[in-house]
């Protein structure tokens, strides 16, 4: 067979997305929805708030009962007592309400007085202000202060 005219190789419009390509796209979107849904279900759907503050906990004390939840407050100065099983301390909210925390477990290395912490556990009764915790998490603030400001600039103006 001989060709009398050259082959037409001019650009043509690309075909619409193939069925295979469309199926693969839907598969990716499906997997993505499942993965994101799993993360949200694990992290947020039960409760968008990671903890209740001491004030919030006292606000709906009756519904909390002796159920496990996370409680946040400031460790009151001078109240930490290290024990064999962990540590006992008082935790306060912003309205001077306080909770006695009995912690069973090893506190993290930054645990100290006058810092916000989150404790995971439950009140001992529906009217009690004693909270039994099986975990302490230190909730550090967004403030950063140098330990030795003079190390950078001394009173005589010299720098390190």
């Amino acid at each position, binding site marked *: 067979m001989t060709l009398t005219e*050259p082959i037409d190789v001019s650009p043509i419009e*690309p075909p619409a997305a193939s069925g295979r390509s469309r199926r693969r796209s839907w598969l990716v979107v499906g997997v993505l929805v499942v*993965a994101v849904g799993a993360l949200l279900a694990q992290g947020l759907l039960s409760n968008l708030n990671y903890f209740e503050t001491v004030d919030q906990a006292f606000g709906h004390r009756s519904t909390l009962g002796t159920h496990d939840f996370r409680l946040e407050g400031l460790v009151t100065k001078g109240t930490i007592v290290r024990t064999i099983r962990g540590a006992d301390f008082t935790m306060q909210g912003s309205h001077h309400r306080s909770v006695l925390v009995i912690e069973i477990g090893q506190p993290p290395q930054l645990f100290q007085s006058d810092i916000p912490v989150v404790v995971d556990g439950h009140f001992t009764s529906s009217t009690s202000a004693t909270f039994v915790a099986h975990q302490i998490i230190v909730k550090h603030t967004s403030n*950063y202060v140098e330990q030795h400001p003079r190390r950078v600039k001394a009173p005589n103006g010299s720098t390190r």
Partner: protein
Amino acid sequence: MKTLFQRALGPFALVTLAATVWLGLWITPPDQRQGELVRLLYIHPALAWVALYVSFGVVVVASALYLWPRTRSMTLDRVVEAGLEVSVIFIGLTLVTGSIWGRPTWGVWWAWDARLTSTAVMGVLELGCIALRRANDDPQTRARRSAVLVLVSAVNVPIIHFSVQWWNTLHQGASVLTPTGKLNVHGSQLWTLLLSFFAFTLVYGWLLRSRYRLESDRSSRHDRQLQRAIAERQSEGSRA
């Protein structure tokens, strides 16, 4: 031909990164609360800044411009391709360094609070965008679909940013981009932190440019191979 800026970007990024490491590890003092652990302040926030705002921001802008008919071009799609891969690296590093910082400070490697969970969701969404690109062979379809998914994913960025204000989270609030505009970082810690933001932004720019060039070369090679194949078919036709 390379401009001076293009030639200097990589070395300049490395120099600023080295300066950040030097200041962060040896010059700045420990923190009153966190002690030596504060040194992660010069890595983690900068990585998060690049991952969530700079790199994904570039991808979102490029995707939006691609979807706009008047600005549509495959150059923008190549920016999306390169930007997504670099962004995933920074998201991954943000999560890893956050976890490394969280263990000694909080006492846990991970917490399912709103900030951490939404950041993990961001990483999964970006991986999904990359997977969607791989699932489509046609360049135009690939570009359009990934651009749409990128814009849908962008809804998560303000959720991540404001999560620490909207809900009770274990993750602390902002230290630099605070709602009141007040900086919560002290003295030399502050300017070392700001330098780290600059250094990691430069590193990102360098990585993006390198990945973009790779994608551009791959695309050019593909076009050349196509032209060669057409020429061969034409010559076969003429010979016949």
